């Protein structure tokens, strides 16, 4: 994704451009977001907003308007956070998009990233269950698990064998996750199993960025702050 690299590197220029812009509007936005998102410093929020703006590609003076569409977001997930699973990337998009308008607005952006980068275990647990459609009283059926896990085995000799292998894997997963033995994984099951063993947080597929990628992203996104500190 060369475009993103360009976008990110262009960011500093944008920052210069925004300097003489309406600083007040920006400050206001930062102020309001920092009320809900505690894990970022204000300067960091500012950086993220600027990054958002450059990603959206708007050059007009209204900060944080409109949003990132699904394709742009998937590109970000892929190139910066190293995600590969299409289905799960879509689901992560929907988890970010709280108001379900198919765009991620600036507030959703900062909030979602706070879980990605600085989320506590509880926050991540909540996020994952949203990604896996578990919020509320939802549940995951056997078939859905199969769908989510079907790509997790390296291609063996034939498709049939792979299917068989995945089926067995689903059995194992169900045995592990289905605490009440009703043949499906409910939100309660999920929470309970993950609390017992944190390794199971992303049991149905990767939906959180790896630590290494997070560090890279932070280094890139907050580079202004970091350089100005020295």
């Amino acid at each position, binding site marked *: 994704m060369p475009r993103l690299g360009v976008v990110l590197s262009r960011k500093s220029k944008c920052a210069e451009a925004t300097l003489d812009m309406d600083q007040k509007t920006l400050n206001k936005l930062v102020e309001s977001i920092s009320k809900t998102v505690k894990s970022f410093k204000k300067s960091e929020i500012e950086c993220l907003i600027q990054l958002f703006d450059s990603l959206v590609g708007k050059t007009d003076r209204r900060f944080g308007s409109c949003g990132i569409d699904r394709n742009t977001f998937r590109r970000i997930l892929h190139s910066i956070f190293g995600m590969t699973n299409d289905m799960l990337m879509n689901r992560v998009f929907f988890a970010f998009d709280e108001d379900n308008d198919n765009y991620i607005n600036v507030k959703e952006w900062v909030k979602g990233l706070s879980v990605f980068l*600085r989320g*506590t*275990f509880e926050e*991540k647990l909540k996020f994952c269950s949203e990604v896996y459609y578990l919020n509320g009283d939802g549940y995951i059926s056997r078939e859905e698990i199969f769908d989510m*896990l079907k*790509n*997790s*085995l*390296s291609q*063996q000799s034939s498709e049939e064998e792979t299917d068989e*292998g995945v089926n*067995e*894997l689903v059995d*194992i*997963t169900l*045995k*592990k996750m289905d605490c009440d033995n009703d043949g499906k994984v409910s939100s309660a099951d999920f929470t309970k199993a993950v609390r017992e*063993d*944190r*390794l*199971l*947080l*992303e*049991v*149905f*597929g*990767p939906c959180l960025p*790896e*630590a*290494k990628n*997070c*560090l890279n992203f932070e280094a890139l996104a907050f580079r202004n702050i970091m350089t100005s500190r020295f």
Partner: protein
Amino acid sequence: MGVALTRSAQWTAAGHGTGTLEITPLNEAILNEIIMFVESFIYKHPQEAKYAFVEPLEWTTELDASAFQSGYVVSDSTVKSEEVDKNGQPLLFLSVPQIKIRSFGQLSRFLYIAKGTKLKEAQACIEANRDPVVKILGSDFGTMEDDSAALNILDKITKDDDPEREIKMKLAILLKQLDLHLLNQSLKHLSLEIHLNPVTVKRHIELLKRFSGKGEETVLESIEYTSDYEFSNGCRAPPWRQIYGEICYVLVKPHDVETLCITCSAEGVFLNGGKADDEREINYERKGEIYKDLVTFLKEISAKFSENMSKQEINFDEEQQKEKEQFDAAPKKEEAATNHKARLGSDKTTYQKNHINLAKTQMTKRLEPSLNWKTSVDIKDRKSLVKDSQEEKHGTRLDKTRTSISPGRAQLLRKSIEKPEEIISESSSESEEDEEPVDHRQEANADLPSEYWQIQKLVKYLKGGNQTATVIALCSMRDFNLAQETCQLAIRDVGGLEVLINLLDTDEVKCKIGSLKILKEISHNPQIRRSIVDLGGLPIMVNILDSPHKSLKCLAAETIANVAKFRRARRAVRQHGGITKLVALLDCAKNSIEPAQSSLYETRDVEVARCGALALWSCSKSYANKEAIRKAGGFPLLARLLKTSHEDMLIPVVGTLQECASEENYRASIKSERIIENLVKNLNSENEQLQEHCAMAIYQCAEDEETRDLVRLHGGLKPLASLLNNTDNKERLAAVTGAIWKCSISKENVTKFREYKAIETLVGLLTDQPEEVLVNVVGALGECCQEYENRVLVRRCGGIQPLVNLLVGINQALLVNVTKAVGACAAEPESMAIIDRLDGVRLLWSLLKNPHPDVKASAAWALCPCIENAKDAGEMVRSFVGGLELVVNLLKSDNKEVLASVCAAITNIAKDQENLAVITDHGVVPLLSKLANTNNDKLRRHLAEAISRCCMWGRNRVAFGEHKAVAPLVRYLKSNDTNVHRATAQALYQLSEDADNCITMHENGAVKLLLDMVGSPDQDLQEAAAGCISNIRRLALATEKARYT
């Protein structure tokens, strides 16, 4: 001939041209063959014998012209053969000392004439003519390289229209045949010698190294390679020397010979030109004969080596066998299948017997150093178990019916075999036998539990899944009971260990965590530990210790703690820099500076430190690791952690300290870090294990007087005394009694213990306790009873009887302590009466026959107060049949402590005139006199006392003089020890009753020394010295008087 000469013959290294043939058996054989060939040539091939060589063979001979007779024209200094070639030139021409020969016929004759010097002449000839074939047949027929070259020659000969071609061809064939023959011969010769290879050489050197060092008993002072670098083929010689088959060079310093520089080559071992200090290169030239291996060589060179070697031979052979056994283990397994079928006969039994013997020796060896009470499991029983399992292992392939042993029983066997290893590796630093346990692969046809198949399935997902599948499989695997051996072995047997270890090498934090969590659990199994080490798991885990993730560090450290239970693993941890990293984990403060990044899997810093301590505890059982911990600055950190109040933390910390405290130089560090204070504090903890380790650490440290005082000053004696009352936990009791024993070496501490009523409690512990505890209890009582009040106390509490009862034991450490305690009690007459009544003296006396010198010495010391305080001591001593002879014969011992103690016993025995008469008859005087030349002050003192006592009988005074005991005694007066002075002065006083002795003393300058002694504040010494001088003076006066009258 050419090939044989260039390839097989051993030329000196100086290169071609001027080289000379070495005198080796091989060369001699080759020369003899050539001589035989040439000598018989004239008879076998008369036609070809006349053929004139293209060029003459020319060399310097030692033969004189006069040696030639008929058939030769002899003048003053020249000899011509009557036989000439077609040009009229003589075929033999000698112009002393140069000789030229041009036909085989003449060569044959020449050798016949040479007779005794044949060999020399042949050698000179070959040396001077490095390419005889060329000279004989012409330069076209250079050294025949191989068959095709030979054919070329034949070809050439056929094409050539030379009239002599037929003869030439025949000669060429004959020479070729000789060449082949020579090569064959030399091959036979070579194969007779055992060829060395880098591995055998290395093994020999390592073995010798193990038996080398300072001291009388070792075989060598030192043995070292000249180069540290080892090539991948196992050689250490530089590549250009490896061409000559040289493997390595060693510098050997035997006890009685200068340092030798030795070349080990494939052909054997020989002395080379040595290495000068300022030169880098070794002089590779061979300087001596070739021996088949190092040991043979050294035996030849060094008398001391062969003497000590014969002493060590058994050991050495055993080691060698063991090495070999280990070394051969791998191929043997493969061989086993085929071999076993092949040698069904008697071979089989010996083969197995060997195996069992080996197992036995290892077993017993392993048991020996540990006095751990747990190991008192019947040894015999275990041996038979090993035997069983061995047989089972070997038997399976031989006859299938035997495999019908139920899996249950097999498992039982397995457990009981592993137990001892467990116990020992956890007990103490001394028992570090690195023994490979019997491997139990589960037989494929055995009934496998369902877990086995389920685990196999999970391992499949570990191998073939992405991160998600791997994590699911890892988490599911942990749902099995990983503490169960079936599951542990199942993971290994389906190849799970490899995968788990491979996962540690990936970037996936979650996989690493999951994998380590499993490894941590299953590494409780000794077999799994070994497999992990074999698969190279330790270096990877050591690397993880650097990870930014604390939980990963913790898990890795905990797993290392489990794995490092045997020596090879501990060494691996050290060699990969693990100790430094583990010590770094202890530094909580430093750890807290972490990257801002938070992770789901984090733990507290304290936990990291705890895991680090846990791993260090395991590692600290190896000496080199203790050193590494010290070097890495571990002690200050451990001391700091000791101030915390978490029991989980304290146990491994104290455990590590306790292990390290077994070495004296670490005790100094422990003292300087104010560790004792905290150890004492933790004695008051609620946790029994912590108490145990604290007590154990104090036990180790309290060898040092200052530490003993520190324990008292920090109030550690009271908790120790009160812990004595809880006797359920035997390990802790052993540690506590141990600490009390060592602490009670200081008198102030004994007073405190009496205050706390510890002595009464100790007496109560004399019965029904495991040996471990008894050793310490008795040791403590032995120390306490040095004081009068305590002796009375022990008697009143009824301690004498159980103590005397313990005299019949077999535990050496216990016997040393018991004899000491009984001896201490015997200093009090009333206690002595009880001991006498219980026949304790006889028991002590019979311990003089104990094989171990410590026990002998201790028993002899104990006998002294017994004889001193017993009623009718003389009668009692005489009642022991053969007892006096036994004591006198102990004077032949070579242990100084035994000698000193026996001298002391003899001093007491000799107080009774009748007994003195008996021991005199047994030859006590010459034996004592023989000991006189000693520098050991303790022995000097008791020896002098014994001599002075023994002077009281018959003509013993004179006898001591005759046996030259007087002069050495005079020298004792120059010692720094007043006790020696006193005893010596008394002995000299006794001896000076004899005139000859007075003369000897005077000659040796005793008077001046004694005059100094007269001024001593010690009254006994004054008196004895004065008495002696007066005797000498009186003699002088008497002589003068005699002269003038």
